[in-house]
């Protein structure tokens, strides 16, 4: 489907927009994952003037991945702007702004470049609500492009989710579809709590066709809508075993399930998407329904989100399990150089090998 049909539709909200501002997209559109994120920010900024976007190169350039493209042109340099090059500065300033009535959405340029902000994130952002007994909540979003699969050089491909999910007080989300990119980022911005929003880099330029009006109507309605936060989704139905994945690994899990189907094995795929809070109920129900599970994640496996999922499942579903819960994760090594990443990344074969190892004979 092309977008031509909708191009002519008058974009009501864009009337009177300053020169150079693109008309607001409406209706059914084929858009990239990146564009869905842009739209989520734009719509949130439109709806609430306290929403601000800032970070390195997010203004004039529109971000190195163009995720903030057009926001400065549309909302002006006071609402979407570049900062000096200092990540603790960005997160620390955002913290102060959130203390004082704003809803900042900040971008860390790449996963490993959020590390300078670690103290601000861990000791302040995560703790503020708790230490003030809820008197100061920090409605802020820290967007982090993460993970690999793009042939990036070192420090540009870390799967850093474990650091955040282990830190109480942070909500940690990671969408894997174009729709979720929009919905979950809006939910993140709407959340009264700080959200670390992890964007799988390799998905930025994937596309899907979505009905924007329908997506928006969730947020335009005054009734409080149920948030995606804390919920997992069944990305594919299946009965023999459950693949549990999130972010960049969901598409690999789906591909594995597709291949398995041709071999006569029915694999269910769960997209965790909300790492914290974790959907124990949904994930456990899925695993109980099949009795076998493989957890898939790109990050090194040791003391990771995948380890947590394994631990939880075996604690909660022990007697439903026909086999140990296995993991297919990144190795416990630094992310490899571009020409070696293919050996590192969980792939279809490795997942199917793990499925084969789920002790089908026993």
């Amino acid at each position: 489907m092309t977008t031509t049909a909708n191009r002519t539709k008058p974009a009501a909200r864009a009337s009177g927009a300053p020169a150079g501002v693109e008309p607001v997209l409406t209706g059914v559109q084929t858009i990239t994952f990146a564009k869905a994120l842009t739209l989520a920010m734009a719509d949130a900024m439109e709806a609430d003037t306290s929403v601000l976007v800032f970070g390195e190169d997010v203004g004039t350039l529109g971000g190195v991945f163009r995720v903030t493209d057009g926001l400065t042109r549309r909302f002006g340099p006071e609402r979407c702007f570049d900062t000096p090059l200092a990540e603790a500065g960005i997160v620390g300033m955002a913290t102060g702004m959130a203390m004082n009535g704003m809803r900042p959405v900040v971008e860390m340029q790449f996963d490993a470049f959020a590390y300078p902000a670690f103290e601000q994130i861990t000791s302040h952002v995560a703790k503020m609500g708790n230490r003030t007994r809820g008197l100061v909540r920090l409605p802020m979003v820290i967007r982090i492009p993460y993970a690999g699969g793009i042939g990036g050089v070192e420090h540009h491909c870390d799967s850093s989710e474990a650091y955040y999910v282990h830190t109480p007080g942070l909500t940690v989300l990671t969408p894997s579809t174009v729709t979720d990119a929009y919905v979950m980022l809006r939910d993140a911005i709407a959340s009264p709590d700080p959200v670390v929003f992890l964007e799988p880099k390799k998905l930025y330029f994937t596309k899907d066709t979505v009905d924007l009006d329908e997506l928006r109507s969730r947020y335009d309605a005054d009734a409080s809508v149920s948030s995606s936060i804390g919920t997992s989704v069944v990305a594919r139905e299946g009965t023999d075993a459950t693949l549990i994945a999130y972010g960049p690994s969901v598409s690999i899990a789906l591909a594995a399930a597709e291949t398995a189907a041709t071999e006569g094995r029915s694999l269910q795929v769960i997209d965790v998407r909300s790492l914290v809070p974790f959907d124990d109920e949904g994930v456990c129900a899925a695993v109980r329904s099949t009795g076998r599970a493989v957890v898939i994640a790109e990050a090194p496996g040791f003391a990771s989100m995948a380890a947590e999922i394994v631990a939880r499942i075996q604690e909660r579903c022990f007697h439903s399990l026909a086999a140990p819960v296995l993991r297919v994760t990144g190795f416990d090594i630094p992310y490899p150089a571009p020409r070696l990443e293919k050996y590192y990344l969980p792939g279809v074969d490795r997942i199917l090998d793990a499925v084969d190892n789920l002790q089908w004979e026993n």
Partner: protein
Amino acid sequence: MTNHPEFIENTANDGRAEGNLLPSVQPVQLIAPEGTKHPESATAGWKERYALPSVDTLLEGYGRLVMGRRINDQANALVRQGRMAVYPSSFGQEACQVAADMCLDQDDWLFPTYRDTVAILGRGVDPLEAFESLRGDWHSGFDPKEYKTALPATPLATQLLHAVGVAHAAKLRGEDTVALALCGDGASSEGDFHEALNFAAVFHVPVVFLIQNNQYAISVPLRQQNVAQSLAHKAIGYGMPGERVDGNDLAALLSVVGAAVKRARDGGGPALIEAHTYRMESHTNADDATRYRSAEEVASWAPKDPLLRLQKYLHDAGELSADDAERFASDAEAVAKILRDGLKTETSPDPADLFRYVYSEPTPQLHEQSRMLADELASALAPEGVSS
């Protein structure tokens, strides 16, 4: 709007355009340790515009110093009696905190550190609320938004960035809020200090950074922390004015900090002030300052005491009436009594609170963990042998 108007007149004639961002050649002092005004020997090179505050202002300040001293004394006593876990004393440094409070309006924001209890009470925070964290019941006891006073920051220099954010938000909304952030000499070495000053300068936001240079970061003396001529010299590297001031001279502090706050409020942007003072007691009650500094050094600072100095000045000027003195003392004693009585009362923090505030709504996991703890506590209370 220029970057740095009036604040910078009459600096030493340095012959360079940017020299006006450098601090005065000597720390600004308006009342000498002896309680005398403007000692001839030290005025050279000062910025002319620092005028002595009015007598009323100085009297108010003196009252606040009396209060501050009493708070420090009382808190130390409570620690000795085991009623409080820890207290980072600011005995000897009270003038900086008092000046910070007095130069801010109610709608301005203060960002204190762990050592700034006097400043926090000076903002109007209920004494027992302010002491709740020191007593160990919770991480904090007061509402930062109600008092426009952040919780005292422990991770050093981190709060400076929050001050920039608060000021930036206010500026974007067109409010004329000023944020004043306190930090120590040691904290100036942290990366966050640098990032905060730079962000404040680039976004031209109304923040006053006030370093209480008390010569030590726990045991580490300033010369092992920094070898610049002064900490105020860092300002020029951010394109903002820096100033240094006698941190035990409340009059000078009020004048210098007041000018910076006014300038910030008028759209002049941020400024950096270094106040020279001294921590007369150990870092906290857990510290033993005799391990790293001599009794002579400590003694040499006693005559520079901010409270005695202002007392002497006001007394010599015939401005401190017996009535005033008594009122200040009894006001201070009243707060001390609140602390004594309050910290005598047994409190029992609620374990269920552990799970209540981590998120706006506890997650399913926290609900589960909260229930687990509640069950544990219930069964611990249940009579032996009976399990629910």
